[in-house]
């Protein structure tokens, strides 16, 4: 394995939400590394903390949320301790938000919003910035006259592509995409997945792709992390995790995804736990068919059982 340079390293990140009933802990100690020029998938069901995690590393957490602890090393700087990272934003790290349907300012033309991003980071003339915007729109497969349009004139799929175009304007090295395909039709979804793949192949960017649809991960990502109840259960290459999942939750989750090939699909009994008080020990033990005494007493540590494969479960020591 050649020495792959690391793009971003997350160490024991915790993002909590204050509330009258006590602290909600959606992200409760997450660590992993994303290598350069790869699409890193973060999978998990709703309520597992994926979106809060993204807001954490991008420092977009709004009160009553706060970053409890942890480090995010990006180009050997800790993003969380930097005083202000707005100059890094968009030049180095860009973000495709979850609600991209209404991430565009309804009263500004598309080009005005994109030029905004350019001129506030790079001091070039507006005309030159417009050139950049127009060429970028072409690269993402959008016609030029979209630039003069207002957001309400575009369909959902087109708005998503405009957001992707905006995110890649300044050719950042890392793009964080939070559920970019959730609310889209299957055909548009496929084109969005393909244009994200192009970011890696054509522009050599690194992408963190967050989605709950495992099939979308299978089509796109190189390495995948399965997240549950605020912690990472398993990390590995997409082939290893899909074909030979180690963690019981990964096994059940992959089995639960319907597909044209499988006639029988089995769900996971029980209910996802509440972030107000996570279960003691391994957080999946109440729903895990292979759980035994130790699972409910002590939280399994996150170990590298094989090169590049991490898992937090006593069964796979």
């Amino acid at each position, binding site marked *: 394995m050649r020495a792959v340079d690391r793009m971003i390293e997350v160490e024991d990140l915790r993002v909590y939400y204050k509330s009258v009933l006590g602290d909600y802990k959606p992200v409760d100690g997450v660590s992993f590394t994303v290598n350069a020029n790869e699409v890193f998938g973060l999978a998990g069901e709703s309520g597992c903390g994926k979106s809060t995690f993204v807001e954490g590393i*991008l420092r*977009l957490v709004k*009160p009553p949320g706060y970053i409890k602890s942890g480090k995010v090393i990006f180009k050997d700087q800790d993003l969380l301790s930097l005083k202000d*990272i*707005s*100059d*890094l*934003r*968009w*030049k180095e790290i*860009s*973000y495709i*938000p979850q*609600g*991209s*349907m*209404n*991430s*565009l*300012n*309804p*009263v*500004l*033309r598309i080009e005005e919003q994109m030029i*905004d*991003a350019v001129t*506030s*980071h790079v001091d070039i003339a507006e005309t030159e910035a417009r050139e950049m915007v127009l060429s970028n729109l072409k690269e993402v497969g959008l016609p030029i006259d979209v630039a003069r*349009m*207002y957001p*309400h*004139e575009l369909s959902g799929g087109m708005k998503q592509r405009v*957001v992707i175009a*905006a995110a890649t304007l300044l050719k950042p090295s890392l793009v964080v995409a939070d559920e970019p395909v959730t609310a889209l039709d299957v055909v548009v979804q496929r084109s969005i997945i393909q244009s994200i793949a192009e970011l890696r192949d054509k522009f050599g960017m690194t992408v963190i792709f967050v989605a709950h649809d495992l099939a979308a991960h299978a089509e796109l990502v190189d390495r995948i992390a399965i997240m549950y109840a605020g912690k990472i259960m398993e990390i590995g290459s997409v082939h290893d995790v899909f074909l030979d999942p180690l963690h019981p939750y990964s096994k059940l989750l992959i089995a639960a995804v319907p597909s044209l090939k499988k006639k029988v699909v089995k769900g996971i009994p029980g209910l996802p736990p509440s972030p107000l008080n996570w279960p003691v020990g391994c957080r999946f033990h109440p729903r895990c068919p292979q759980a035994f005494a130790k699972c409910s007493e002590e939280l399994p540590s996150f170990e590298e059982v094989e090169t590049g494969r991490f898992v937090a479960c006593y069964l796979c020591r």
Partner: protein
Amino acid sequence: MRPLVLYVTKRVIAYVLTIFLASTVCFFLFRLIPGNPIGAYISMLMAQQSYLPGAEEARKVILEYKRVFGLDGDLFTQYVNFLKEIILNQNLGPSFINFPKPAQVLIAQYLPWTIGLLGFSAVIAWVLGNILGALVGWKKDSNWGKPIFYLALGLSQIPFYFVAIVLILVFGYMLAVLPTRGAYAPWLVPDLSFEFITSLMLYALLPSLSFVLTSVAGWIISMRSMIITILGEDYLLFAEAKGLKRSRIFMRYALRNALLPQATGFAMSLGFIFSGSFVIENMFSYPGIGYLFGVAIGQLDYNTVQGILLISIFAVTTANLLMDLLYPLIDPRIRYQR
């Protein structure tokens, strides 16, 4: 530009319809009030001239007055002449107060005072209120934000004339530093001299302040909640993620979206000016149409009263129409409906 043309025609139709409906309501309102204002006026006339013309002359005089005041014929013909008079030659009929001067001329003399006093303070209140409201909303948890909000919260719903009472009490009597009656020093002759202008300002200070204070508070509250709702919108989060400067996000993303409803709100508040002028001008005996209205009611001069009503309706609906027509310029969603 077809959708825009549709939007304009729809608004103009609504405009004409509303004016027509409102003036009809006014017209019938006067006719249905118990007690006959003409009769009262004539008996007042007779009392003043203290002579008792025979029944014949009195009847002729009444008939003549009825014709002059457009009260002859049945209700419907009166209504038709009423409309004809207004639309064709903008004549609102003679006023009682200083007969035979037509009501519209009389009103025209007093109107500039109201426009000057309340029109001007409404604009100040809108601008000041929105700026303050936006800042309070934007810096939600700052230490100066909260007190301003709670002060505005209290003030916003209090009727302006309470504030007027307090102002009169404090500045007019306790400190006795500001005049509380009239529009300018009585010994001054209205001309463009510096002295007259300052006296004008001084006299207008208390009335406009009582109006400005309450409406500024109202605008602060509405703008603040607009800004706070927008703070939760996704495009704000996206703008922040783009690393734009805080000031730019505030100006082009938050303020721009928040101003739209506030603009329509301003047109609606214009209607309030004519209501407000009635009380304020009578409390400060400031010679605007509100004051004229008070006098006209006292003297049962019902042409002037009706005239003032019609003019204020006309002014309010026109303001609303202008605001509706201006709206597409600031909100592209109307202009570019696909």
